[in-house]
């Protein structure tokens, strides 16, 4: 299972606090200490008083016993589950062209195997869930295609995390993203007050993905949309005549890449803009990840952005 874990990534981000906007509900303890008392507040440790600490945080009883100033530190117990929704439609098999044809490309592929969007998504899921479970959060997974839905209920602990990754390894891409009516029952199993990561390329045939986001983002649930893109989509490096084939429908289009290049950027920008607007209406944050860039870099910038969003 650890094969999904990028050690370089973990080395950089595992000690970094994962800050959600729902910090008040006790997702993770963050940079700012909570003053909330009651259920879910768990004693962690004492430390010596340092100038600047509020006087109200000094444990006066301990001072009476030891005649020294100690500050009581507490850790919040998580009440929010984290769901990872993985789009396993066939379009997630897309990868950059250098891995597709040509002798040179084949050699390159052997020495530097590159990921498809789905490979990247599984690694991303594993890394994020590792961070979460290390901090004692409950994590669950939902992999969706129009033909199959695989759900791992939320749980905590390393054993649960291992079981989830075992299921993750068995997920295969195929078909399309399911229609809303197909996933209604499944969605109802996602708990309220949870954080949902939707890892997808956000390519849809009608509006099935946005309908899904709309359904899951109701209530107190926070949804983060992680859109995966590959380098070829960003730069459109094709030359000459290219026969493009849709991974989901098999439809082919013969295109002169040079003539389509400029229009491609227009079309892509239009698509991204429409997606951003739709998600903004649903108050869903969008995070774009380039799968041909190092994952640790993407995670670092994602977590940093979330830190800025902290109220």
């Amino acid at each position: 299972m650890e094969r999904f874990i990028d050690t370089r990534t973990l080395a950089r981000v595992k000690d970094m606090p994962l800050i959600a906007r729902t910090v008040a509900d006790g997702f993770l303890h963050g940079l700012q200490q909570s003053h909330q008392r009651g259920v879910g507040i768990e004693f962690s440790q004492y430390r010596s008083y340092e100038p600047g600490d509020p006087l109200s945080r000094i444990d006066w009883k301990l001072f009476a016993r030891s005649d020294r100033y100690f500050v009581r530190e507490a850790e919040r117990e998580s009440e929010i589950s984290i769901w990872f929704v993985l789009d396993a439609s066939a379009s997630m098999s897309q990868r950059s062209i250098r891995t597709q044809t040509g002798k040179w490309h084949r050699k390159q592929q052997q020495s530097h195997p590159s990921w498809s969007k789905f490979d990247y998504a599984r690694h991303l899921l594993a890394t994020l869930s590792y961070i979460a479970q290390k901090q004692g959060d409950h994590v669950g997974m939902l992999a969706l295609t129009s033909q199959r839905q695989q759900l791992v209920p939320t749980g905590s602990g390393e054993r649960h995390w291992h079981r989830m990754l075992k299921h993750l390894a068995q997920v295969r891409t195929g078909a399309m993203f399911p229609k809303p009516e197909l996933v209604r029952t499944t969605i109802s199993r996602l708990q309220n007050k949870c954080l949902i990561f939707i890892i997808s390329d956000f390519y849809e045939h009608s509006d099935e993905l946005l309908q899904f986001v709309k359904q899951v983002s109701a209530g107190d649930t926070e949804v983060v949309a992680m859109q995966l893109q590959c380098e070829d989509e960003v730069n459109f490096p094709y030359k000459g005549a290219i026969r493009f084939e849709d991974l989901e429908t098999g439809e082919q289009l013969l295109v002169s890449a040079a003539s389509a290049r400029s229009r491609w950027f227009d079309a892509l920008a239009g698509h991204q803009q429409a997606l951003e607007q739709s998600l903004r209406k649903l108050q869903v944050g969008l995070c774009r990840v380039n799968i041909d860039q190092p994952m640790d870099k993407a995670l670092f910038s994602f977590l940093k952005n979330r830190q800025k969003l902290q109220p």
Partner: protein
Amino acid sequence: MPELLSSLFVANPAGLWALLTLLIPVMIHLINRSRGRLVRIGHIELIRKARKLQVTEIKLTQRILLALRVGILLLLALILAGLARPGLFTRDQATIYVTPTWLKTTDQHAIDQLFSNTKNGTAAVVVLEAGFPQLEESRVNTMRGTSTGSVDSVNVNLSNINAVWPLLTERLSLVRHEGPISVYATDYFQQFGVSRPALPQAVEWVISHPDMTPIAEQLSISAVVAHDDDRSTDAALISNALRAIKAHRLPGLVWELVNTDQFDIAQVDADWLILLSARPVDENILAGINAPTVILTDAGDGAHGGDTLPVKFPFFPFTSFRLNRLGALVTDKQAKDQMLIRSSAGLPVLQLTMTGTARWLQFNSRFNPDWSTLTEQAEFPELLLQLLLPASQQISRFPDARIEPGRLDRSDEDPLAGQPLTHRSLQTVLTLLLALLWVLERWLSERARTRSGQRQDHSLDAA
């Protein structure tokens, strides 16, 4: 337009190989629109949007660019090949050329008929003589009179006859005729001249057969036959041949027989010198004397071989003579010598050497029947005449010779065939056109590239 295109020619046909470069842009274009590489993507809809828009414009631009690039390479190839139009001037109407001999010998009725034919159209009648004067109906009698002296006379002095064939060649190479060309001539051989180079354009020959008696020019040629005592037989045989030539070809020919003992070669004053002597001839002495135009010598005494060698005449391919003995070569400067006759074994029999202004013919045997049977051949006087008389003078040997009209269009015997014609080069026009196409190609190419680049930048900014 088709006539104009068909009249164009290239001065340097090797340059047409550059036309192969036309394949380069065409192949690039074809490769670019071939089936293409397969790329699997997640969302074909974006590609459809990218392809739908402006696809017609892009295709049109690419086809125009292809046409421009092909045009540029085509023009380059044509410039390399030296595309040109024949002739310096253009004459788009029908033209009738008449030879002075025809003008002088034809009757008034034929001339009236000629002009009645031309009145319907715009045909011009031009006389084939220096300056190519146009023949106008009102001036016909004047031109006939000034040319011949008397219209009534049917006797034409051959010395006044122009060689109309070279004149016609010059005229056709200078003037590009777009209309039909007719040439009115008589069938008398003399008017066409010795040299008949290929005509740049096809002409229609109208040959008349006038009943006239040309007055042959009297060629006065003197010859000296100098011989050793033991070669008097040879000299007598030569003398017989000269007698036949005088009787049938050259009435003005005179000759004398002298003994080499009483003969100083340096003092010779004759057109032809026939030297039959055992003594070797010093080439330097031959080069020093100016009077003879032709010198004919036979072999010395140092003969070798007893074989009978059959030898064919190159000029009379159906007859041959036997060569019993060959002499030692008088000169061994093979390189500059021209072999006129070889034996069947490849040995030199008759060779030509230029010494000063004279032609030195060396016969490597003797005219004695013991040595060769040459003098016994019926063609011997004719062969001797052809050898001794320069080509320019040979035409006068046949004052009444006629030409077959069917042979007039043949140019395979033409010594000047293949020479470049006078032409008007189109390179300036082609270069200007090339520059124009190049500017257009650059502008269109740059425009397409800039628009694509701007769109890309804009998209990136938006992203």
